[in-house]
Structures are given as C-alpha cells and as structure tokens.
C-alpha cells in the first residue's frame, strides 16, 4: 500500500481514496453506506456487491469521456474523479464523446475467458503445448478470487502470462460469444490511469477474436437471500462485505451477522472477524454444518444458529440496517439481533452468460445448489466454478429464503434495480406465468443494467419453491450479449462520423456543392436534389428546372447510374435470358431499354443497355440496384449457365455520364461536338456515336428519361467535371439549367416512366406496369414462366395509372390510399382499391398529378376516386399514366 491520496468528488462532496480502490470501496471507507434510493419505490439502498453484479450503486461519471450509468463497484478510482449517484436512470449526454476508440482482430488457437486460478491453469496448459493463447480477464488484477483474498497467484502461472505465444488482456471484458469461436471483448485502457481524455491513445479497444478453442473460466458470483427488508443499506453479499473490510480497510461496520446456506458464509465471517468486525452470529439454514470453515468460526467463539435464517431486518433513521430477525425457514421462533451489517451467502451462481450466448444450456446441480455448465467440445470447454468446481467443503443447501407472508413478501426484494419483490413473483405465478421468460417479462426481473446477475437463479428457485419444482424444471437461464454495459462508441471504434458509412460522390460533386445544391442520399451516393437560385425553395426550383427541360435545355449528372460492362461471345444470349425483351438482335451502336424480372415474374430492375461491340454490352441499372443486379447476373452465370462465355464487371465508378435534355439540346450538342452530325437523320433515337466532346473522346447516346430530345455524354470519370463545365459554358445563352433528382422524378412521371422501387415493391409484373410491350413472346427469360401462374395472370391486379386530383394545387402524399368515389363519405375503415406511388406539382401541366397502382386500373380510366386523408377526403379521377406527349413527338426535337 502506498500512502498516495486520491481526491474525488461524489454527489458534490469531496472525498479521498487510495490507489487500488474502486469508487465503491473508497466511499464505503468514508462510511457512505446509504448510497442512493431505488428507482421506483425510493427505498434507501447501499452498495451490495463487489463487482459487475452490483444492482444498486449506479453512478454517472462526469470526468474524462464520462459514463452515463455504471456500477460504482466497477470504477477504478483515479485522482480528480467526479461522479454522481443515480436513482436507477441515467441521462444520455448531449455532447460528443471525444475520446478515441479502436478495434483490432485476432485469430488464435485458444481463447481463455477469465484469469482466475482455473483460467490461468487452462491458459498454462495450452500455452505450454505451444498454442497461441489470449487470456482475458475483466478485473483490475489477475487471479480472480485469489486477488479478492489478497493471496499470491502461483508464480509458475504468472510466468505463463509472459510467454511470447500468450496475449494477456486484463481490464478486458468478453461481452459476447458467437458462432464458430467468435468472441468480442472490450479492453479499458485509460480510465484507470487518469481522468484525462487522451489524444494519443484509445480509451477502449474492441477485440474481435476468432479462436479455434474457447475455454470458459468465468467463475461465479455470490447469490443473495430473499427475506423481508433485505435491501436496506448494510445488507450485502458476504464475499463483498468481507473483501471490502479485509482488502480495502472499510471500517463502516462494527458488528455483523452472517446469514448463510453454505460454508462460504463461514469463511467470510472469519475474514470479517480477523479485521475487527464483531461477528455476532452466523445464521445457517442447515442443521449440521461441518468443515474447516465451520471449525474456524467455532474457534473464534462466534455463535452459530443452525436451522435458522433471516426473515426480516430493522433500520435506524435514514434507512440503514440496525437489526436482523432470525427464525426458522417457516418463520417460527423469531429473534431480533442488533447489527449494522447483514452479510448474506446464498450460494454461488456460476457466470453462465457466455455459455448461454452460444446456446449451451446450464444444468441444475443439486449438490452445488447452482446452474452449472460442464461442456467439452472441439470448440468450447468449461472449467472452474462455472463447472461447479467450488471449494471442496462448500456444501451448500438449496435454499433461497424463508416462507414469507404477504406483507413480508411485498418488501422482500428479488431484483433490487427493478424494485421487484417476492410478492411480484407470486403475482406472476398467480397470473398463470410458469416459464422464467414469461415471469421475467411480467415482473421486469433481470431486465436492468445487471441483467439478473444476482436475481436470475433466485427467481427460478422461488418459482420452483412456489410450484414444488426444481429450478431447472422452471426453464433454463438465457442471457443475451453484452455481458456488461458498453459504450456504443467502443463498438463503433473509428467508424464514426464520416467513417461510419462510405459516401459515394461523382466526379462532378464539387460543382454541385459549390452551386448550393442540397443533396439527396441514394444508397451511399450523394446526388444533387435541386439547384436553388437565390430565394427559391424546392418547389420553385423544381418548377423552374422542369420548365427549362421542357422549353430550353437542362443538364443532369447521371454518373451514379449503375453500369455493368458485359463481354463475351455469349453476352447477347445471356441478356436475352435475363431481360424480358431481346438483346441478341440489337445492332452494334444501338441502345435498348430493358426490364428484368425475378423468377417470380416480378419486376426487379430496369435500365438501358447498349451494344458497343459484337461481344460487348454496357448495361445500366438503377442507382440503388447496381450491386444487386451484378450479383444477380453472376448468380445465373455461375450456378445455372456456366457454359455461357460471359464476363461482368462493374464500371459505375469508371464512367461519368452527363445528360442534356430539352428542345435546345441538339443545338448544344452540336456546339460541344462540332464534328458530329446531330441531325435526327444522322443520329437517331437510341443510337450511340463516338465523337470528341470538348476535346475528350466520348460515347454519346440518344436516350431520354423525360420524353424530351436528349443526349447522354459518357466519358472516362476523370473528364466528368470538364464535360459538365463545358456544357454550362456552351449552353449559357440557351438557358442551360442544371437539375437534380427531384426534377428528374417529375419529368419522368409526367411521361409515365416508372422508377423501380417507387412504382414497384417487388409485387408488380411488367403487365401491371402497362409494359407488356417489352415482354417477348418468342423467347424464354427469367420469370416468364411465372406470368401464367394463377396469381400473376388473374384479373383485379393493381395496375399503373395516373391520378389527377380535382384540386390542382393539392399534391397528394405518396403512399396515400385510394378508395372508390362512392365510398368517400362512409365511416372508416374505407375499402381501398390502390395507392399513390408518385405525386408532384407539374410546371408543364400547370397542376398537380400522380401515378398510382389501382386494382384493375386500366379498365377504370375515367372513373372518379376518393383519397381519404386524416383531415379530409380528396377527390379525383383515374387517368392514363402518360400525361404529356403520348405520341412521342418530343423525343426527336
């Protein structure tokens, strides 16, 4: 022990502690026995346990990176620490956590969880056999219970930790164990050193460990007993009490009564007595206790009351325990003993959490009075107290508490943090709950921060007692990761903020940003949404952009469209099988719109594919569908048609696409590429030309997603910005207008073009979308067989139509349900016949319009409909889905 003094602040008052303290031990040494009040019943509560099992003493740490809600028993004291007690509920800070967090991956032969004696022995065995070993322990010191007892760890075991094939992680908690030897552990690196938030070192490091074999040596936590007023400050677990007194020099307790079901209580009584606590009695429910620990208590002349247990406690003003009532298990012959510490030893509860995470069911061992895990496979094994390897003379009795009347049960606490009592358990049983999982949900037992570390087994024991069943007949304990509370920041590591998810931008992105365009997230892409001019909102900007596209010329960055390069002698045949229409007949230099379906016949993606060479196609996909489509192509090529010589590569990032659209786009295209004959005769719709554009070799395609005359200029990605700037410069006097995704959506909707994912949700056939014209009758393709299935060919399917609301300045919300007009005034719920998929105001139409999917829609064109909204019913009429230029006169300019 050094004489160094650590100053800290708790609930606004200054305290001192010393190195090696936890916040809990330092506070107890300062006689802070009444720690806080409970969350629901506001009962006084004190420190109850020694480590992660603590249900009462929660704090918020305000220094360093801070912690919202952690047990004071797990905080290593450092100078300057500021903490505040909590009444069960912490407030998330609204400030950013500025500490650094990190993660690392490790593959090892053996992972040992727990560096108590049995964990160390397992690590030694594997390490000496030459295997790579990681041994992880959550406490500040190696040794498990040995450290609590201040006993030396055998030197040969400590030597093992220094072997080159051994990685020893102390202050590290395995929070989760998963399939195939995968474990996640969180290492605490700085909080035990100082309150400083360090910039040169991560505060916590998450270890992702994959081990060929995992040894669980997770030890055990002590159980409390359930009796009336067992929650008063000064009622503690006996191992915790003895360790605070013995190891940490706590002098808060002058007298003690130990209430026990096993010999651990005797060992703790001896430790208390050796450190100046007057142990008034050991109260043992067993009739004939024996063993070394019992003899040791007798030698100290400590009275032993057998066949007795605690049934109630009394308190002094303020709530601290002042006496304990002992009686038989049935409550007979009660007797009051004054004491300021009631130390409980209700038996051990092996820490089975990690084992249950991977589906291992603990078994009830009557001799151990505990759920234990004895497991040995190639992947996992268990050892130590987890396997029931308790001290040889523990001899616990299966006992959870005395018989209590209703009033006693009302204040006999099972889960302190949830303020759940034996009475609550009875209510659950009387309500018909039997399974531990039902009781847990009914009573909230085991659902607090400690996840039932002290309450789990006694809950099962008490249900069993009430029903005359053994604890394992109630069900098995199941826990879920994480084992302790972990900051989200620790799990995220460096993947925060900008690094939390990749952001994809086009080569023209900087221009959009400089132009002040708000961005829309499309998958991971950032796409300009609209380009507002001074004083414009989105509505005004979109009307202006659309008008420019219909009357002059407008430009869009289409670089995000998915692009897949498809090559090989069988590429044409392959596309015939994938698309609903023919591609093998497509001439080189021509583009064709294609639709693809799943095997169920439902539209899956669409896009324009261009034949750039005899054996070479470039497919475009929806922006969000690119990866999915490439996977789809590969799946068919690899698993069904390996005979086809076809190779697919994503070229989305390699090609920049600038689309210029509108009646003046031909004029602009001619200026950009003076050598190119842009006349309709020389450069027809769906044709591709290779030409120089502003000095760059480009492929120009006459493709239109708006119905207007349009050109898509494709160049290697690094020329994208150059082309865009050329377009803006050359088109200045033509009212060249950049437009974003919103105008693109409006323009295509006016023309009745669908967007896969907006007009579709995976339940639309091409025919539902009115696209039967694109479905080949001559050839087979993926999904075709499904078109003749009863459900896909039935009458009454939802079909794509247009909707014109009567009120032309009202934009119906997308997703709104559509009802028959005759149902407009009936009470809710109204039978719906379809729903709105796209809805916009239109500059061209001078009014609002919508696309919708309506049952039998195409036959109902002209019918009146009603759209029930929360505050009114909107009326309108079903129309064709094409609102402008039905005869396609605009596309050729």
């Amino acid at each position, binding site marked *: 022990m050094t004489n160094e003094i650590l100053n800290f602040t708790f609930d606004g008052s200054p305290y001192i502690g010393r190195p090696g303290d936890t916040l809990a031990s330092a506070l107890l040494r300062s006689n802070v026995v009444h720690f806080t009040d409970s969350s629901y019943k506001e009962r006084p509560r004190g420190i109850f346990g020694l480590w992660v099992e603590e249900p009462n003493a929660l704090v918020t740490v305000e220094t360093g990176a801070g912690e919202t809600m952690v047990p004071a028993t797990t905080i290593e004291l450092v100078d300057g620490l500021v903490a505040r007690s909590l009444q069960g509920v912490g407030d998330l800070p609204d400030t950013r956590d500025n500490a650094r967090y990190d993660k690392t991956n490790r593959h090892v032969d053996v992972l040992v969880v727990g560096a108590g004696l049995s964990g160390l022995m397992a690590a030694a065995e594997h390490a000496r056999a030459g295997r790579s070993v990681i041994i992880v322990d959550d406490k500040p010191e190696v040794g498990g219970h040995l450290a609590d007892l201040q006993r030396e760890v055998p030197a040969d075991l400590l030597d093992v930790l220094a072997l080159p094939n051994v990685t020893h992680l102390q202050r590290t908690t395995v929070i989760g164990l998963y399939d*195939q030897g995968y474990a996640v552990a969180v290492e605490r690196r700085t909080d035990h050193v100082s309150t400083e938030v360090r910039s040169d070192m991560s505060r916590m490091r998450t270890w992702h460990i994959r081990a060929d074999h995992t040894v669980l040596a997770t030890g055990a936590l002590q159980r409390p007993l359930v009796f009336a007023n067992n929650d008063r400050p000064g009622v503690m677990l006996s191992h915790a009490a003895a360790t605070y007194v013995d190891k940490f020099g706590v002098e808060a307790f002058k007298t003690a009564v130990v209430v026990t079901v096993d010999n651990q209580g005797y060992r703790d009584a001896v430790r208390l007595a050796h450190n100046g606590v007057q142990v008034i009695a050991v109260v043992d429910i067993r009739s004939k206790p024996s063993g070394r620990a019992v003899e040791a208590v007798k030698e100290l002349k400590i009275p032993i009351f057998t066949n007795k247990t605690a049934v109630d406690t009394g308190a002094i003003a303020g709530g601290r325990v002042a006496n304990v009532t002992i009686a038989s298990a049935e409550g007979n012959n009660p007797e009051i003993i004054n004491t300021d510490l009631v130390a409980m030893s209700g038996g051990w509860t092996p820490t089975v959490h990690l084992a249950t995470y991977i589906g291992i069911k603990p078994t009830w061992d009557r001799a151990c009075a505990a759920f234990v895990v004895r497991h040995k496979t190639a992947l996992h094994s268990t050892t130590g107290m987890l396997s029931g390897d308790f001290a040889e003379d523990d001899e616990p009795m299966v006992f959870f508490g005395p018989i209590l009347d209703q009033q006693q049960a009302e204040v006999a606490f099972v889960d302190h943090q949830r303020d759940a009592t034996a009475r609550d358990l009875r209510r659950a049983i009387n309500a018909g709950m039997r399974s531990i999982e039902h009781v847990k949900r009914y009573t909230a037992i085991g659902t607090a921060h400690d996840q039932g570390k002290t309450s789990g087994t006694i809950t099962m024991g008490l249900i069993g007692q009430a029903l005359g069943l053994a604890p394992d007949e109630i069900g098995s304990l199941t826990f879920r990761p994480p084992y302790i509370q972990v900051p989200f920041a620790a799990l995220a590591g460096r993947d925060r903020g900008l690094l939390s998810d990749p952001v994809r931008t086009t080569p023209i992105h900087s221009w959009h940003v400089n132009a002040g365009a708000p961005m829309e997230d499309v998958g991971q892409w950032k796409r300009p949404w609209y380009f507002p001019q001074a004083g414009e909102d989105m509505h005004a900007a979109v009307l202006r952009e659309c008008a420019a596209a219909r009357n002059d010329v407008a430009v869009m960055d289409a670089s995000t469209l998915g692009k897949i390069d498809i090559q090989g002698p069988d590429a044409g045949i392959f596309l015939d099988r994938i698309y609903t229409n023919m591609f093998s007949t497509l001439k080189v230099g021509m583009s064709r719109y294609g639709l693809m379906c799943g095997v169920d016949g439902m539209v899956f993606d669409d896009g324009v594919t261009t034949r750039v060479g005899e054996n070479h196609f470039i497919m475009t996909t929806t922006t969000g569908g690119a990866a999915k489509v490439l996977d789809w192509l590969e799946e068919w090529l690899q698993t069904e048609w390996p005979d086809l010589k076809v190779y697919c590569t994503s070229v989305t990032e390699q090609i920049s696409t600038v689309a210029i659209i509108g009646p003046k786009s031909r004029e602009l295209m001619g200026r950009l590429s003076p050598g190119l004959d842009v006349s309709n005769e020389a450069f027809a719709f769906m044709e591709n030309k290779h030409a120089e554009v502003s000095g760059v070799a480009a492929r120009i395609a006459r493709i239109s997603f708006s119905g207007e005359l349009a050109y898509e200029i494709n160049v290697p990605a690094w020329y994208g910005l150059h082309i865009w700037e050329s377009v803006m410069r050359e088109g200045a006097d033509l009212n060249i207008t950049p437009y974003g995704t919103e105008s693109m959506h409006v323009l295509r909707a006016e023309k009745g073009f669908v967007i896969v994912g907006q007009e579709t949700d995976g339940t639309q056939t091409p025919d539902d979308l009115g696209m039967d014209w694109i479905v080949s009758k001559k050839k087979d393709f993926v999904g075709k067989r499904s078109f003749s299935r009863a459900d896909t060919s039935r009458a009454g399917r939802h079909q794509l139509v247009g909707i014109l609301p009567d009120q032309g300045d009202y934009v119906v919300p997308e997703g709104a349900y559509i009802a028959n007009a005759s149902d407009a005034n009936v009470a809710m719920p109204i039978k719906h016949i379809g729903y709105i998929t796209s809805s916009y105001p239109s500059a061209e139409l001078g009014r609002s319009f919508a696309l919708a999917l309506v049952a039998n829609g195409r036959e109902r064109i002209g019918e009146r409909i009603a759209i029930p909204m929360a505050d009114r019913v909107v009326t309108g009429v079903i129309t064709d889905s094409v609102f402008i230029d039905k005869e396609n006169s605009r596309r050729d300019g």
Partner: protein
Amino acid sequence: MLHIPCPYCGPRDETEFHYGAEAHVAYPEPNEVSDADWAKYIFIRSNPKGWLAERWVHSAGCRRWFNVWRNTVTHEFGPSYKPFTAQPEKPTS
C-alpha cells in the same frame, strides 16, 4: 458471426458473404413444368433441422458462388464445394 469456408479463399467472416438459400434446387424446364411444381421451385425450400447444403456467394471477396454443408441447429459448417463438383457426404456429427 459465422466463419464460412469459401472453397476459393478459405475461411472468412460472414460479413463478406451473401446467403443463397438451399443448394441443388434444380431450375425446372419452364415449358414442361406444372404450375404447382413451378411454384414449388420459386417458393418452397426444405428447411431441415440439422445439416443442409446451402449456396453462399463470397460477395466481398472472390465474388464466386459455392455450396457448403451447414448445420442449422449448431451453425457448424461441413465441407464446402464448388458448383458442379461432386457433393461431399452429409456430415454425420
């Protein structure tokens, strides 16, 4: 997280893969199959308790499809194998 044995790359973390459901579900000849059998092909998979031969694709690795035995109860993996190669025996343990 599963540890999946890609027959091309070796064992890798599950996050690198996409699942492709039951393996060896033959693509029926569309013009010869009944509606009922076609529906079975689209919607019905065997979903046994125990060993199942599955398809996976190593999408964040070699991008190749393969088959592998997996125990749906223990999540244990048996041998993996390339498409159109002989299927290894169903694991016994």
